[in-house]
């Protein structure tokens, strides 16, 4: 399997778990021209990112093409414990997807 497009880290401090994630994705806005061909690069972006904690969705991010290339997302939640599973998955407008799981540190 190819290397995951998602890098993430989850850290517990006090009772708050902070999750930070970076996704590798072109996030083309559909407005930029290919310099060689002069044609517009088609729109290609992540629509949805689902962030789960032990199988329950904590944050569901719905994005437009206005999110920067290689998106960064960070959020916090309460009720996490060390060793809990965080899973992050994304879906783009072309039907591409990827997911990644990690443990809270």
């Amino acid at each position, binding site marked *: 399997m190819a290397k995951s497009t998602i890098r993430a880290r989850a850290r517990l401090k006090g009772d708050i778990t902070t999750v930070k994630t970076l996704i590798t994705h072109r996030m083309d806005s559909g*407005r930029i*021209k290919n310099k060689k061909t002069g044609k517009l690069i088609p729109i290609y972006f992540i629509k949805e990112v689902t962030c789960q904690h032990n199988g*329950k969705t904590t944050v569901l*991010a*719905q994005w*437009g093409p206005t*999110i920067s290339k290689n998106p*960064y997302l*960070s959020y916090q939640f309460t009720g996490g414990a060390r060793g809990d599973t965080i899973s992050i998955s994304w879906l783009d407008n072309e039907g591409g997807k990827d997911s990644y799981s990690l443990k809270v540190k």
Partner: protein
Amino acid sequence: MQRRSFLKSTLAGSAIAVAVGAGLLQPRMVLAAAWPKSAFKAKTAQDAMSSLYGSAASMPSSEITIKAPDIAENGAVVPVAIHTTLSNVTNIGIIAEKNPLPMSANFEMAPNAKGYVSTRIKMAKTSSIIAIVVAGGKTYSARKEVKVTIGGCGG
């Protein structure tokens, strides 16, 4: 295949828009159901807000803070963090007012999620970032002006 799924999604999207228009569905329910296509296609901040949160009106709140640079040298990458001390937050939205497509992101928050999200957005030109927070069924907002030196949405 792609065309088929595109048709399907546009049909589903318009059916939802009709249902919202008729007052059959609460915006909250629609969010759980599908990616809010009409909001992300909206050309103005007002249209995006009314299609996503049911109304273009929102109460300015001092309990929302937007952390973003005053001057962004590169509009392609503008870090934005929204923090709120409001309770019962169900949604956080980020809108870049003068972008060709202003709606940038909508975050649906579970009850145990803190009122905090951080991401990076593209901005075409100097404009206000509007943070929308839906808490306890009410819509609150805050604004912050970001000066953009080089636009990041292509020309």
